[in-house]
Structures are given as structure tokens and as C-alpha cells.
């Protein structure tokens, strides 16, 4: 049980001394609460069936808008995010009281909350993606908040790489979706009829979006990152990994449900994925003895169930989706915060040793009991209604109602057993001594779990409020309004769902009673399954090895190799395009050449020959200089003084620099003649000469020249066209170039310094 440790020992020791974090602790809570209030006052118009859209232009050239859409679905998510966000921030302010980096924590958590709100409210595909990636990024930083530990860094990186890789597929899917739908505006896409489902690109779009959704929502087989993400401080887990981020994938599926659901691919993939994840995760949850890990796996179960229902189209299934979404967020966030209280109070999260805490922590115990009863699905809590609807929804499944209902039943029974392990055992049965003497948490850390648990109880007794305000508008948004939402009732009469509820209680009690034997059986049964987490590490190691290998192959460190590669590419490009395009015949007219031109040409040629044949380096450098100065003379003869001056200066500097370097090098050895290199040089030279002649034999396009000649003085007040182009017409390009100059100089400077250090 060595991994079961709390992540903030320093915060615990200073708990009695410091009560909060001052202004940086309070301001984020106020902001989150304000956002919650804002969304709350939007409830009446949304409940009346309205949709609010707010739009501003952002990148008009790409058709990307800063557009936000508030309907039942996005409002439900926004309320959960801002409401739980406010409670979690209140909780964190005490949980991490006096933490030296609380400012960073509060900033990251608030940034995450805002990104998540943006994600669920976005009405533009690109905007949606931007917020999607922002949540990935901020959650990476939050999971790795305790970055001094290597394990935390590794787990944060795993979450980042997996969700970001899914994000790339997601981006591609969004772009395809936008082009197939003819609009990147989500409200337009939702208004489409069956066009999208019959579109030729439907399958690729669906698969790509699904990859994004299931990596983000940690569905099997990408489930392994979520339990590792529990490296985050407990309030972060409560927020990100119960109520919000992992639900982003589910949100996406719900968002595109009206436009894309109903096909066989959609129904089967989501049903199978969801059911597999739900059952598999419930078993894995039973295996855990760390309370937080157990909760993490039950979150997976919930995500699987939500995905399963989104695969369907019936009113029962979607009503079950909307209800369970809310139920789960309430009880799961509450239980996570309860586990945080236990952890901080006793110093352990080990379910095997904890017990009897109800005496020392009565309020936490009460919150845990109510939340766990909602999770287990006891009446009169909201969880019971959620469970009844789940059964009704499962029985209404079009594909395999018996199988799906069976899967949901087993998963629910296991939930009941896990609820017992998480919320009954630590408080109500006798336990072993804990590392610290337990005591009740202070009010900010009780407010969150108690409010959330109470809501779950109240809404169970008065489900009409929830039904009218959030559930029915959500169902409307998810189905596009074709399906009648089903009522939320505590007592729906004697029916099959009720019978299944009774069966759940019985089966759950059996699972709970025989949990030790169940664990022992699972240890054997799950042993042959692939260890994805370890496989992930091997994959990363393999990637590193591959990178090292190919770097060694490509970066040989020998200049001749680099030059050779460069020349081969140049020759291939030039000759390839020459033959591919089928260039016109070269018609070089050398009749107009005067003695001046011929003299220049022979100067250049003799310089080049001298460079190649020079016996010593200094001669070769001088030969290069001759070529450079010859080029400058060409510019002078043809009337480009600016270019000529630059060429002369650069040439001088290059000769000086090369001379400085070369003179320090060992004496030139007599090299044997290498036919391959000579051939390559000849080919590159011939290709360049051919291209030059080809350009000359084309009629000169003077449009740009004419424009600059005409516009230079009246528009830029300068007669030196070259300079006017550099600093005015093309100033942005010049800025880019001088930035490159600086970067190149700094890199060379750094490399030289490094070489100097190595030499010493």
C-alpha cells in the first residue's frame, strides 16, 4: 500500500496555523460563484425551450466565429462546471491552505474551469477545438501539480499525450465535419436533416470524433490514464475527473447526437464501447483498496453508461442520460471531497484499514452516507430515479435490450458494493489505528460534500424541478426535439425497472458480502489481460529508442554528409521538376554579350576552378572570394548597386570569417579523386545552369517591377526601390528575416561557446 499517500503533507501540518490563502484564495471562489449565478438566471428562458446564441467575428477570413450557444445541454454542463467549480475552489482554499504555490493552483483550476465552460458553450467547431485543447493543457498542469515527484510528472504526461493524440484525430474530424456540413457553426450543423448521416464522409468523421471523445472520456481501451491522473490533488480529481473534463467526450457525443446519431455504426460502437467500459470498470473499481482509485474506476463506469445511452435514440435512454449525468456529478464530486477529508484527517486512504470515523467526523460521515446512497441508487434519492431510468432506457435499447440491461444491472450492483466500500466501511465498521488521530474537517471542506449530497437528496424528493429546469431541455437538445422526454418519478408503479432495482440491491449485497473472494477471483481472472499501463511505458521507451536511432543516422556530424544530402535533394528537385513539367526548350541568345560580360564570366569561372583545385585552404578561400566579388561585379554591370554593395560586404566578411576558422585547421591532405562527389557536383551545377537559362528564355514578367517603380515614391516616399521594398512594402518579411539573423547568430554563438567549453 505504499502508493496510498497524501499529496500535500506540508498543507496538513500547517492546517491549524493558516485558515486560507487570503485574497488569492477568495477571488477565484467569488468568480466561480458569480458564473454559477449568471448561468442560473439563464435557466427560466432555456426551460421555456429557448436557445440563446451570442456571436462575434473572430477570424472572418477562415469563417471562424467567436460564437456561443446556450441550450439545455450546454446549460446543464455550465451549471455543473461553475457550481462544482465554486465548491471545489472553496474546498481547495482550506485543503491547500498555506501552500506556497496556491496562487498557481487557483489560477490553473480557474483557467481550467473557464476553458471547460468555453468548451460546452462553443458554437463553432474551431472554437470548440481551441477550448478542448485548453482543457487538455490545463488538466496536464493540474495533474502534475505536485511536479517534484517523478511519478506525478509521468502520469501527467501520459494524460497529456493520450488526450492530445486523441485531440489531433478530433481536430481532423471537426474539419471534415465542417466541410461535410458546409458550416462550422454548430447550431447550423444541428439544424441539418439526415444529410450528414448519408454523407460519403460520415464514417471517417464519426470514427475521428469518436477517437477524440473516448480518449478524453477514458473509455476502454484508453481507460488506463484516468486512475493514474489521480496523482492530482484530491480537489482536482473531484473537479476534473468526476464532473467535468472526462465528461467532455460525453458532451461532444451528446452535442453531435442530433446530426449524427441513429446509424448502425453510431449505435453499435457506442453501445459496445459504453457497455464494455461500464462493466469492466465496475469490476476494476471493486479491486481497489485506495478509496480515490476506487472512485476513479466508478467514474469510468459512469462514463461508459453515459456513452451507452448516447448510442440510443429512445426518449427513455436520453432522459436516463440527462438524469444520470446530473446524479453522477453530484454524488461523485461529493464522494471525492469526502475522501479528501478522510485523507487529510487521518493521513491514509486505504479502505482496508480505515474504520469508525463516524465518531470523529460525523458531518463528513453524513455527507458520505447520503452521497453513497445516491450512488447505490436507494430511494428516495435522485440516484434511485436515475437508476430506474437507466433500466427503462436499457430495456428500450433497439439492439440487444437483454444484454444491455444485464450489463447495466451488473454494473449497478457493483456500484452498490463499491459505495459500501467507500462510504460505509471507513465510517461505520471498526477499523485499525490511522497515522493521525482523525478529527472533523472545517466548514469550507464540509460545505462542498454536504451541499452536493443534500442536492442529490432534495432533487430525489422533488424531481419535478430538475425535470422542468434541466433534464427536459437537455433531452430536447440531445435528440433535436423528435423524441418525447420521459418523466422523472420516484414511484413509477410496479414495473420491470422496479423489479430490476430489487435485483440490483440483492446482487449488490452479495457482491459486497463476498468482496474479498471477488477480488481474489479477479486477481486470477484479469491476470491474462494486457497490462496497458506498462505497455504504454514500453511504447514510450520504444519511441525514444527510435528517435535516438534515427537521430544518429541522420545527424552524422560530418559536414560532407550534410552537404551531400543537400545537393542530392536540390538536384532531384530541379531535375525532377524539369522532367515532370516538361519545360520548354532553352533558347539562350548569347549574341548580345560584350567583352565586359565575357571577362566577368571568365573571372567567375577561373575563381571556381581555382577553389576546387587549390592545394591549400587559403588559396581556396581566395578563389571563393574571387567568385563572390565577380558576382558583385555582375550586379554593378547590370545596375543593382544596393545588391552589389551588400554582396561585396558579405563576401568580405565571409572571407574574413572563413579565413579565421580555416587557418586554425590542420593542413589540407591530398584527397583522392572521388568520382561520386564529382558527378554530384557536376549534376547540381548543370541543373542550376539549366534552370538559369530556362528562366532567361522566358519572357520577363514585369508586373511587380512596374508596380514598385510606380508606387515607390508616391506611396512610400522613397526612390531606392530595393530599400523601400525591404522596409515598407515587405517590412513584415524583413522583420522575419532579421529575427532569423538574430536567432542564427545566437545559436552559432552558443555553439561556439559550447565548443570552447568542450575544448578546455
Amino acid at each position, binding site marked *: 500500500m505504499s502508493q496510498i499517500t497524501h499529496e500535500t503533507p506540508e498543507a496538513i501540518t500547517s492546517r491549524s496555523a493558516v485558515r486560507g490563502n487570503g485574497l488569492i484564495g477568495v477571488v477565484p471562489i467569488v468568480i466561480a460563484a458569480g458564473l454559477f449565478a449568471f448561468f442560473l438566471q439563464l435557466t427560466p428562458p432555456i426551460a421555456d425551450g429557448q436557445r440563446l446564441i451570442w456571436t462575434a467575428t473572430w477570424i472572418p477570413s477562415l469563417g471562424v466565429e467567436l460564437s456561443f450557444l446556450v441550450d439545455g445541454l450546454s446549460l446543464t454542463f455550465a451549471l455543473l462546471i461553475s457550481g462544482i467549480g465554486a465548491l471545489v475552489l472553496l474546498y481547495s482554499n482550506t485543503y491547500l491552505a498555506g501552500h506556497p504555490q496556491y496562487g498557481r493552483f487557483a489560477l490553473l483550476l480557474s483557467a481550467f474551469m473557464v476553458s471547460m465552460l468555453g468548451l460546452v458553450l462553443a458554437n463553432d467547431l474551431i472554437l470548440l477545438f481551441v477550448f478542448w485543447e485548453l482543457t487538455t493543457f490545463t488538466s496536464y498542469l493540474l495533474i502534475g501539480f505536485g511536479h517534484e515527484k517523478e511519478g506525478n510528472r509521468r502520469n501527467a504526461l501520459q494524460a497529456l499525450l493520450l488526450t492530445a493524440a486523441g485531440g489531433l484525430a478530433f481536430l481532423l474530424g471537426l474539419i471534415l465535419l465542417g466541410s461535410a456540413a458546409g458550416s462550422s457553426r454548430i447550431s447550423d450543423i444541428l439544424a441539418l436533416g439526415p444529410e450528414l448521416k448519408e454523407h460519403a464522409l460520415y464514417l471517417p468523421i464519426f470514427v475521428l470524433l469518436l477517437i477524440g471523445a473516448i480518449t478524453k472520456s477514458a473509455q476502454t481501451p484508453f481507460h488506463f490514464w484516468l486512475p493514474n491522473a489521480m496523482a492530482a490533488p484530491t480537489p482536482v480529481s473531484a473537479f476534473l475527473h468526476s464532473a467535468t473534463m472526462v465528461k467532455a467526450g460525453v458532451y461532444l457525443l451528446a452535442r453531435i447526437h442530433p446530426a449524427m446519431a441513429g446509424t448502425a455504426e453510431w449505435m453499435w460502437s457506442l453501445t459496445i464501447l459504453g457497455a464494455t467500459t461500464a462493466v469492466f470498470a465496475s469490476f476494476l473499481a471493486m479491486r481497489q483498496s485506495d478509496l480515490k482509485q476506487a472512485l476513479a474506476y466508478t467514474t469510468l463506469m459512469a462514463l461508459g453508461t453515459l456513452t451507452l445511452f448516447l448510442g440510443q435514440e429512445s426518449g427513455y435512454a436520453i432522459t436516463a442520460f440527462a438524469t444520470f449525468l446530473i446524479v453522477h456529478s453530484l454524488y461523485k464530486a461529493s464522494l471525492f471531497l469526502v475522501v479528501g477529508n478522510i485523507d487529510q484527517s487521518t493521513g491514509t486512504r486505504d479502505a482496508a484499514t480505515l474504520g469508525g470515523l463516524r465518531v470523529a467526523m460525523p458531518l463528513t460521515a453524513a455527507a458520505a452516507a447520503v452521497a453513497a446512497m445516491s450512488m447505490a441508487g436507494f430511494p428516495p434519492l435522485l440516484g434511485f430515479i436515475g437508476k430506474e431510468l437507466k433500466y427503462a432506457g436499457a430495456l428500450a435499447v433497439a439492439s440487444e435490450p437483454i444484454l444491455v440491461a444485464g450489463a447495466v444491472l451488473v454494473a449497478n450492483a457493483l456500484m452498490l458494493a463499491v459505495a459500501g466500500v467507500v462510504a460505509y466501511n471507513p465510517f461505520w465498521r471498526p477499523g485499525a489505528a490511522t497515522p493521525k488521530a482523525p478529527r472533523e474537517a472545517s466548514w469550507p471542506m464540509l460545505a462542498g460534500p454536504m451541499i452536493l449530497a443534500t442536492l442529490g437528496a432534495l432533487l430525489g424528493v422533488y424531481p419535478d424541478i430538475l425535470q422542468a429546469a434541466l433534464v427536459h431541455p437537455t433531452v430536447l437538445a440531445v435528440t433535436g426535439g423528435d423524441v418525447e422526454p420521459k418523466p422523472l418519478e420516484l414511484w413509477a408503479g410496479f414495473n420491470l425497472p422496479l423489479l430490476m432495482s430489487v435485483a440490483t440491491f440483492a446482487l449488490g449485497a452479495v457482491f459486497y458480502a463476498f468482496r474479498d473472494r471477488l477480488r481474489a477471483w479477479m486477481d486470477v481472472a484479469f491476470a491474462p489481460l494486457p497490462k496497458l499501463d506498462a505497455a504504454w511505458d514500453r511504447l514510450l521507451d520504444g519511441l525514444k529508442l527510435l528517435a535516438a536511432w534515427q537521430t544518429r543516422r541522420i545527424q552524422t556530424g560530418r559536414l560532407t554528409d550534410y552537404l551531400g544530402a543537400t545537393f542530392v535533394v536540390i538536384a532531384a528537385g530541379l531535375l525532377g521538376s524539369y522532367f515532370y513539367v516538361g519545360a520548354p526548350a532553352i533558347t539562350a541568345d548569347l549574341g548580345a554579350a560584350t567583352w565586359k560580360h565575357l571577362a566577368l564570366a571568365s573571372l567567375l569561372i577561373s575563381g571556381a576552378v581555382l577553389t576546387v583545385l587549390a592545394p591549400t585552404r587559403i588559396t581556396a578561400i581566395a578563389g571563393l572570394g574571387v567568385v563572390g566579388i565577380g558576382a558583385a561585379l555582375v550586379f554593378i554591370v547590370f545596375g543593382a548597386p544596393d545588391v552589389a554593395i551588400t554582396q561585396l*560586404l558579405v563576401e568580405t566578411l565571409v572571407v574574413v570569417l572563413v579565413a579565421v576558422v580555416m587557418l586554425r585547421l590542420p593542413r589540407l591532405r591530398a584527397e583522392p579523386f572521388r568520382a561520386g562527389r564529382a558527378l554530384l557536383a557536376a549534376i547540381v551545377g548543370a541543373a542550376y545552369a539549366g534552370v538559369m537559362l530556362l528562366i532567361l528564355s522566358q519572357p520577363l514578367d514585369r508586373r511587380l517591377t512596374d508596380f514598385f517603380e510606380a508606387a515607390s515614391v508616391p506611396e512610400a516616399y522613397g*526612390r*531606392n526601390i*530595393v530599400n523601400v521594398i*525591404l*522596409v515598407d512594402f515587405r517590412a513584415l518579411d524583413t*522583420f522575419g528575416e532579421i529575427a532569423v539573423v*538574430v536567432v542564427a547568430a545566437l545559436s552559432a554563438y552558443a555553439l561556439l561557446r559550447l565548443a570552447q567549453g568542450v575544448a578546455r
Partner: protein
Amino acid sequence: MNSVILSAGTRYLVWLLLAFSIYMLLRGHNEPGGGFIGGLVGATGFVLDAIARGAQAARASLRADPTSIAMIGLGIALAAGASAAFFGDALFTGQWLFIGGSETEKGLPLSNILVFDIGVYLVVFGSVLALVFALEEVM
């Protein structure tokens, strides 16, 4: 390189080349020249100095660190380009002011274009010297 003539001459050449480089910079908009050429010419003076008396001495006579000069130049160029935003234009749009100008007389032209070119001058000047000095010192 130990040449008395070179090191004696360089002391004057540095100043001469610097003055010439500024002349090249300022005339650049209408005559051959500009920030790029100016920067190269200015740097040549100190390169000579480095050859004649060594990089350490040339560094000392330059006083400022050449990499900082390059960075400041980049900053000036960016600021000059961004300043167009204050006049409601797109970035890197030329802004002109003709001091003492009238219907017939053009006046003294001032512009953010000149400031931009000064930035280019400093970047080229600083980068070349950073490279040359470092090479001289390593070799």
C-alpha cells in the same frame, strides 16, 4: 595578427566606417544604402579592430555586448512596425511626418520606417559582431 600599421590605422578606420555606416543608413531610402548595408559597414570597422588588436580589445572598445545590440535592434524594429496600430493601420504600415513641410517644400521627413531601418541596422551590426568575436575568441 601583429601589425603596427593595421592597429594604428584601425583606430581611425573604426570611426570613419561607423560614420559612413550611419550615412548609408540615413540615405538608404532614396540612394543605395539602408539598414542592412549600414549594419554590415559598421560591423566591418569592428571586425578590422578584432583582427588588428584581438576580439577582447574590440569588445572593450565596443563597450556594449553585441548580442544585446542585436536583441535591442529586433525590439526596435518590432516596436516600429507595431506603432502603426496606434494610427489605426495594419501592422508594419508606414507612418510619415514631414516637419516644416508645405505645399511646395517637402520638409524633413520622419517615419517609423526609419526607426524600423535603424532596428535592422542594429540587428545586422550586433549579429555579425557577435559571430565574429566569438569565432575570434574560440580560434
